[in-house]
């Protein structure tokens, strides 16, 4: 088991190359990054910028 570091690009015991999408779906920390970064940018940061840009009434 030591010869195949799990999560590596070829991380499969049988030596088959796993497709990139499967590698992504098998990696919870990559998923964690996506699940925090996407809404943080598209929802939170963009949203806060929208509110910050509301002009002051004359």
């Amino acid at each position, binding site marked *: 088991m030591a010869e195949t570091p799990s999560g590596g690009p070829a991380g499969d015991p049988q030596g088959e190359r*796993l*497709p990139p999408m499967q590698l992504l779906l098998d990696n919870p920390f990559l998923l964690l990054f996506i699940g925090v970064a996407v809404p943080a940018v598209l929802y939170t940061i963009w949203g806060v910028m929208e509110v910050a840009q509301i002009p002051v*009434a004359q």
Partner: protein
Amino acid sequence: MAITPPENRLWWNEPLHRMEIVWITIAFLWGVVMFLTMVYWHIAGQQNLSNEAYRVKPDAFAAKAEAMVARYKVREEGDSKIPVVRPPAGGDAYLIARLWEWWPILELEKGQSYRLHLSSMDWLHGFSLQPTNINIQVHPNYEMVLTVTPTQSGEFAVVCNEFCGIGHHNMLGRIYVVDRK
């Protein structure tokens, strides 16, 4: 099974059921249709909420509303003498939300457009025009400006539909829509 690891190590390469492909395609396209419907309504629809808004101090907003009331007041109503204001068609109509009233009563002409200004003096309130059922959030320190065209005449209620404390359920305002003379 769903509670055991996939038997096939290379599950990503498993063929799809034909029904899955058809359903995913339909569901995706339906999503695109719903997305484009919102965009289309911005171009062709009559009911789009304005995003025009300004930061404003409550006193400054109240001053503008009071100026409108002083100028266009037509009568007073009830024991508490709520002013009824008839702003000129096409002009600015101010509505103050505060604990626990909508002030003043507006009297609008059917078929005319008004620039309606909404803001709160204290907490969040909800502008809920009934029975038409138009619902808009009202914030303190922000003035929202929208153009509204009443299409029915009669007596309309402004219910507060954002919880604003113990008197929330008594916060009821009124808008009259009258036929053109």
